[in-house]
């Protein structure tokens, strides 16, 4: 079963490519004092907040909302 980090990267990748998707996840993990592989479902609010902050200036808001919904769906 993929980790949370892997799931989120795979959701972001079609839009921003693998490098930026990885950056989004790693930046969140770093801000929480964790490695990307250690991210858990409890860290989802921080992940969502970081994705919104980083992608907000470059992607349509509705698309970001859709990605967030998909991220939430991946942990259910």
């Amino acid at each position, binding site marked *: 079963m993929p980790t949370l980090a892997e799931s989120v990267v795979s*959701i972001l*990748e*079609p*839009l*921003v*490519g*693998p*490098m*930026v*998707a990885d*950056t*989004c996840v790693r930046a969140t993990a770093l801000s929480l004092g964790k490695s990307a592989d250690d991210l858990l479902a409890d860290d989802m609010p921080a992940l969502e907040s970081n994705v919104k902050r*980083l992608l*907000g*200036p*470059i*992607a*349509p*808001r*509705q*698309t970001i*909302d*859709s*990605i*967030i*919904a*998909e991220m939430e769906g991946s942990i259910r």
Partner: protein
Amino acid sequence: MTTGAFSRRTWAVLVFGLAAAVIVQMLVASGVGGESTAVAISDIGGILVIGMAAVVTIRTALAFGTGEPLRAQWLAIGVGIAVYVLGDIVWAYTEVVRGLDPPFPGLPDIFYVAMYVFLGWGIISAALAYKGLVRMKVPLISSAVITIASAAAIYVVLVKDIILDPSVAFLEKALTVFYPAGDTLLLLAPAVFIVLVVSQLGRGALGVPWRFVVAGVAVLAVADAVYQWLEWQGAYSTGHIIDLGWMIGYVLLAVGASVMRDLILPAPRG
């Protein structure tokens, strides 16, 4: 998430835009209806094709929510295209309705110069929006190097001789220098910068619209440089094949806008 395919709207903008540009140029080249008709077809056809590009781009901008950075970026690009069309309308009025040769420099140049401000600002602000996500230093240095090399080439090939030509009036010299300089510094440099920035997205769909924008800007820059040279040589007249370059350049910008609109996904339910 599906982001790979273009919408029917985008295909329509691409195919219809390019086809319309080519048809206008073919009608002009055929000389149908005589010289004055060919000039009218060229001027009005250009206005319709580039006007369509302005409408598509502005509609894309307005498809984004109020306060969204993408709205401001694409609105600047769309308004830039629209002011260029205004310049073309003034040009066509002078040439087709009044039957006069549009003066250079003249009223249309005010709109053509304004276009650089809007278009350049839109592309630069879009590129800077990636700050924090990707490396900016390498694209910045690379675009600066490419810009300096292009500016030097344009200076040697085009600008130097025009500046030294005593038969060219000051304002004409200033504008003749501004257009290639504006193409290089305000359009090409930001375009190269953004394409290097979004190249770091790999196959990420967000990079695709900007690749069309860069292609469009490159076509516009070449068309402008050739136009300046032809104008200086007294070899340009309305309906010249170079007019096709402007139409295609702006159509490519509109395609970029439409591709960006394709990336708006349906709102999540519940």
